[in-house]
């Protein structure tokens, strides 16, 4: 009943030179408050498009997205987003990047600074406030991006393969950090990934998407107690299950192609 986010019969078609292309087909999904939901699917299945529509950056062709009882019409700071590519404004320092959303909201100087510093602290970047993005590593950049997305206190955090472009070890650390932040802030998180490991380690629930036109194949509850161990039996079994589902999806793609 009490859903944070509700997606109803969502479809998206793009018009290309070869005519209409269906990217997403009839997607319905509910997300509970404070849930960590991962969306996983083969590349090109439209998972990013789905997330962008929740963010309000793309518009659905049909269906609706309801957040906190209100229909999503366009982008708004009540949905924070962390992008796959590095999206920090290179002309702003770490502090100024985190303050950006607050500046737009016209939060006063002092309060703005306090809030920004709190979130910089939360992502573990104290002491880097006055650095420019070029001075940071990839992992640090994404930490700032998380702080920036959280600073406007969104009711949901959308993450589009945020750790896709950092190395494997940094990625593990960032995942742990994200879980810590999630626990602290109790945010609802919608997390798009192509990594089975990531989905199993992070999420309460995994949604598996099919190849284009993307639709939901399966919703799986990840009933592994936290804190999780990456190498535990349960985790491995779950990975196995997910990998099977995904390879099935991929083989369908081969047949249809």
């Amino acid at each position, binding site marked *: 009943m009490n859903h944070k986010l509700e997606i109803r019969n969502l479809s998206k078609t793009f018009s290309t030179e070869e005519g209409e292309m269906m990217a997403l087909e009839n997607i319905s999904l509910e997300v509970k408050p404070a849930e960590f939901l991962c969306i996983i699917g083969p590349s090109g299945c439209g998972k990013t498009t789905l997330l962008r529509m929740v963010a309000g950056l793309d518009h659905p062709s049909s269906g609706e997205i309801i957040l906190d009882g209100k229909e999503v019409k366009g982008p*708004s700071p009540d949905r*924070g987003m962390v*992008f796959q590519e590095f999206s920090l404004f290179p002309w702003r320092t770490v502090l100024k990047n985190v303050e950006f*959303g607050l500046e737009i909201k016209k939060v006063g100087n002092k309060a703005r600074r306090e809030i920004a510093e709190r979130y910089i602290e939360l992502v573990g970047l104290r002491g880097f406030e006055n650095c420019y993005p070029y001075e940071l590593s990839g992992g640090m950049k994404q930490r700032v991006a998380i702080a920036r997305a959280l600073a406007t206190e969104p009711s949901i955090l959308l993450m589009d393969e945020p750790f896709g472009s950092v190395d494997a070890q940094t990625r593990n650390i960032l995942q742990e950090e994200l879980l810590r932040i999630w626990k602290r802030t109790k945010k609802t998180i919608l997390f798009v990934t192509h990594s089975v490991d990531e989905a199993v380690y992070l999420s309460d629930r995994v949604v598996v998407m099919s190849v284009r036109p993307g639709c939901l194949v399966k919703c799986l509850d990840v009933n592994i107690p936290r804190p999780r161990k990456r190498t535990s039996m349960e985790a491995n079994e779950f990975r196995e299950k997910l990998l099977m589902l995904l390879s099935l999806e991929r083989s369908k793609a081969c047949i249809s192609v």
Partner: protein
Amino acid sequence: MKKSKLLQSLNGRGAIEAISLCGAIIIWEIVADFIIRNPIKLPSPYAIFLSYLKLWEIIPVDICTSLLHFGIGLGAGAAVGVVVGMLMGWFRAADRVFDPVVEILRPIPPLAWVPFAILWGGLSHYAAGFIVFIGAFFPILINTYTGFREVDKTYIDAAKVLGCKEERKLIKSVAFPFSLPYIATGIRIGMGVGWMCVVAAEMFGVSKNGLGFRLFQVFWPLHMMDKLVAYMIILGLVALLLDRLFRHFVEDRLLKWKKGMVK
């Protein structure tokens, strides 16, 4: 061993550069005094030095006059160039409206405007400034346009989800700061072209003062070649100084976030 040590100690203090410069001046002096032996065809460095002493009263006046022309033209060129470039780069409709006019006017050499500059502005500072404006405007426009065109879509999306949605705010908070390095490059190129235009406009007599005017309308008819070369050197030095100042204030301060990306 001794030799290389000497070289090393000279290194890094501008000593080699200074020696090179002095050497060039000495060679010039020798060639002028003993080979050419015609102060009209090649005035010697010493004669030029003496002419500076004779001209010391008038040089600052001419420099200021030329800088005034330059300032009027560059200021107007930057103001109009940045605004039009921004509109063209950001709004598709503005691009289509302005583009044909810009593309037709752009290849016309600035000096071709001299008659109209005189006709419209008389022999005033504004007439000379107008020629500088024509020269500086287009590089600033084109570079600003490119900057606004190349704004990364991710930055726009990131700004939008943070609540920055109106076009005006997106321009102010994202597109403009993103384009600043492009605008700076445009202004720097515009400064170079503008300086050439100052001198040329003054040579044509668009103004009654200034470095170019003195050089071409006074020294040249009277064949005062030592003074003429003295002014040539000033023209080069002022341009060099302007460029250095610009780099110091704009590239090292305003664009310090760019460091590491380009340097």
